[in-house]
């Protein structure tokens, strides 16, 4: 076991291969490998604790000329996000258990988990980019093969849009590596060695190229238009992985690549980037308010929530960074739960419009409870996880550039203005004439188990955030301005 980090991303990939050839037993293989993946990351996390000095490094290198080396490392930020990936992947497998799908469905999810793990582990920018792009392929097939009516359009749009961002990221990386070689005479893609000061006057161009690649993924307004389609058309579990983990790649990229390489530039960009982030929180909420489709509403709410993450992270204060990072996990849990429940509704009724339901609270009390619980977590009720993350992110923004915090607070208010009426319309209002509420049965034991797990975590982070914040802190310490 000299390469535990390689095993970490290779295990789900092996699972994907097994699923692809396992035929009708694929879902059992998927469950087994997903559980194994959770076990591996948990073991690694406990072995390491939050001690950044113990950060595991696995390295083979240089594997090729031009300074490309295979270098993986896991600090608490990586392990936290891989933990989220592994956990949501397992949740997705359990939540999809009754679907009648081909073995490739399970293979795609495990392949996606593998590529995401690689993104969070890679410390060599070449491999970072390869894993980054590799995430697109399984998600393209997940949307295109198992999505809803407009899936064909959404799949291609998703791929092209995010690829457009990555192309600029790649050019920026190439410029960075070449400039480093020109100045130092050394070819390297190693994040720890690369020195952006070699770029000279080209530094802003390279910085913004990187930011463009990350901003599409987050997504930051005005680069968000792929998201509503992709999230709405993907199957429920696909939306969970998209919102729960794939959006986090963008913020992670800022934290891991753009900020450490360009500490000054990234802070100077706060008015622009922070302004766009604050605008995202308001604009996302306003768009969510106008939606008549539950899934689309949650999709737009993701834009708003990622705006809070960004506000915190960009502020470069210790509480902002901690809150923004915690909010990455929070959003994965709450939005994941909401997408799953819309998926459960859709499986039963083949509808997901706000006007298609009414009075669901009396027919499906469990569903009403969990939906209400997750909605409250999502709008930031004190005592649940969303509050902690948003509060800390906003207080960080207040310390860095107060106007951003004021805009963010407006976004928080607006969140309640779309989420609560939507809950009311679906669960409490009397059923309208076209209502399909009578088709909706309550959650079964499997579905309840999934949601209990997610809700318990939401409550835990909300009541006792300290261990979570302390866990991430060592990885973020170096970024505080």
């Amino acid at each position: 076991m000299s390469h535990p980090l390689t095993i970490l991303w290779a295990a789900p990939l092996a699972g994907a291969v097994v699923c692809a050839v396992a035929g009708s037993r694929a879902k059992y293989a998927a469950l087994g490998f997903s559980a194994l993946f959770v076990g591996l990351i948990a073991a690694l996390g406990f072995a390491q604790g939050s001690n950044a000095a113990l950060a595991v490094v696995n390295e083979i290198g240089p594997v090729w000329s031009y300074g490309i080396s295979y270098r993986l490392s896991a600090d608490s930020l990586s392990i936290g996000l891989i933990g989220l990936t592994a956990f949501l992947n397992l949740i997705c497998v359990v939540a999809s258990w009754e679907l009648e799908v081909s073995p490739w469905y399970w293979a795609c999810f495990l392949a996606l988990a593998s590529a995401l793990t690689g993104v969070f582990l890679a410390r060599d920018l070449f491999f970072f980019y390869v894993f980054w792009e590799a995430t697109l392929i399984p998600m393209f097939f997940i949307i295109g093969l198992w999505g809803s009516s407009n899936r064909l359009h959404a799949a291609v749009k998703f791929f092209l849009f995010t690829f457009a961002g990555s192309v600029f990221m790649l050019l920026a990386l190439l410029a960075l590596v070449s400039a480093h070689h020109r100045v130092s005479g050394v070819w390297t893609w190693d994040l720890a060695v690369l020195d952006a000061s070699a770029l000279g006057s080209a530094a802003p161009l390279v910085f913004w190229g990187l930011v463009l690649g990350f901003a599409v993924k987050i997504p930051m307004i005005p680069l968000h238009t792929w998201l509503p389609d992709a999230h709405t058309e993907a199957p429920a579990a696909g939306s969970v992985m998209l919102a729960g983990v794939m959006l986090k790649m963008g913020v992670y990229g800022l934290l891991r690549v753009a900020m450490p390489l360009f500490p000054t530039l990234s802070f100077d960009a706060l008015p622009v980037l922070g302004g766009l982030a604050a605008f995202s929180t308001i604009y996302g909420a306003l768009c969510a308010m106008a939606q008549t489709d539950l899934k689309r509403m949650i999709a737009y709410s993701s834009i708003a929530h990622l705006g809070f993450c960004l506000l915190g992270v960009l502020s470069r204060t210790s509480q902002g960074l901690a809150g923004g990072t915690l909010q990455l996990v929070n959003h994965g849990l709450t939005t994941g739960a909401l997408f799953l429940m819309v998926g459960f509704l859709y499986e039963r009724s083949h509808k997901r419009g706000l006007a298609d339901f009414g009075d669901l609270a009396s027919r499906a009390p469990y569903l009403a409870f969990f939906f209400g619980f997750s909605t409250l977590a999502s709008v930031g009720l004190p005592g649940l996880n969303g509050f902690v993350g948003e509060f800390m992110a906003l207080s960080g923004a207040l310390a860095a550039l107060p106007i951003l915090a004021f805009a963010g607070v407006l976004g928080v208010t607006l969140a309640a203005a779309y989420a609560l009426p939507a809950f009311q319309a679906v669960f409490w209002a009397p059923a309208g004439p076209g209502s399909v509420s009578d088709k909706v049965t309550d959650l079964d034991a499997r579905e309840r188990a999934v949601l209990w797990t997610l809700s318990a975590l939401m409550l835990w982070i909300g009541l006792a955030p300290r261990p979570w914040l302390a866990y991430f802190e060592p990885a973020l310490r170096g970024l505080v301005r």
Partner: protein
Amino acid sequence: MTLMPMAPQAALAAGVLGTLSLGLMRRPPALALRALAVASIAGAMLLAVGTPAGGYASAILLSDAKSVGWQYLIYLGALPLALWLDGTDDVLTALFLGATLGMSLLAAAANLPMLFIALEFMSLPAYLLVARSRPGARGLEAAIKYFFAGGVAGALFMLGLSLYYADTRSLAASAALSPLGQAGAGLMAAAALFKLGAFPLNWWLPDAYEAAAPEVSGFLSTAMKSAAVLFLMRLCELAPEAGFIRLLPAIGAATALTGAVMALRQERLQRLFAYSSVANAGLLIIGVGAWALAGRSAEGVSALLFFLGAYAFMSNGTFAFIRFSGLETRSQLKGRGAAVPAAAAAFTILLFSLGGIPPTGGFMAKLLLLWRAVDAGLLWPAAAGALSALISLAYYLGMVRDLWFEKADESASFRPAHGASLVVACAVGVLLLGAAPWLMSSLSGGLTR
């Protein structure tokens, strides 16, 4: 002095003569013809492996790292067509081997007249190959168009050569050029750009690629393109001070964007991949420009070698899929994935590779080439090349979508032929190049060191 470095060309010449001799029989044995074609190409390849780079240099022919490396590319690009040829047509086989011999001579040409002879040697059989591979009025029309375009290219080269000679009194390398010599070098470069289908000299290419049999289009877009790239590189070497070199990045950028945009609206598959071939030629021209402008480094050569090597798999694989499936238009692709899963999955991998998605050889190829451009300070051509890759992804992904996500039209007949294994082999090739790129680069590194 030994003639051993010319052994691959000798093997091909023997193949041509053998084919023509077999053709004298009333009914040439098909199996023997096929075996002869495959044996000539494979034999030439093996002999090229045994050729020491730099072992031979005369006034007209030479053997250096590029000539050996490009021979690999040419034989690699030609091998699939040797496997496809049905063996009943001895003339077609002889034309194919003759064109390959011309390319192989081009790889070893040391001075300008020899380059011209090799250029004509590879082009003349290629015109006839286009006309004969798919009999009919369309094929003839395309072949005549192709012939005239090639004739113009040859004439440009001749005119350029005379101007160049008038200035320098030399048929080989020359450093300083007067305006007359500059014009001559520019005209000769125009001939090479013509062959590559560079903007705005690309109008003949889609017609020729569409009219020919798919496997012949694959041959033209891989072996022929490799030879044309080397042709351009040799000109850059012979006239290092020529002004056209500074224009290459811009020409490449325009070509890459034109090809990608034109391919967007194509319905017929062969025409679409013809434009995609133009787009890739644009990237190669940017790569040649970067190599020539940044001190003609070994890294630049190996980036071009890698790109062309990966492209040999990608382009031959896609045209092999068209030939295998018998599908002609994009809409006929709809829903066919499930009927031929292995070949369609291989085709999908090739499409992702053409689009430059990791972990495929196509990604590594684009990365290395654009990297050379960025390293040479050609930021805007590199950005144009990246933009062209992005645009082209729209139709590559569109085809993946049609193939797998759409419903098939059950009323239309769909009878795939034999040869899926070749598509699969090409897909395995690009995956290998993507997963272990150092296999290729250690080969080219050994050559260019």
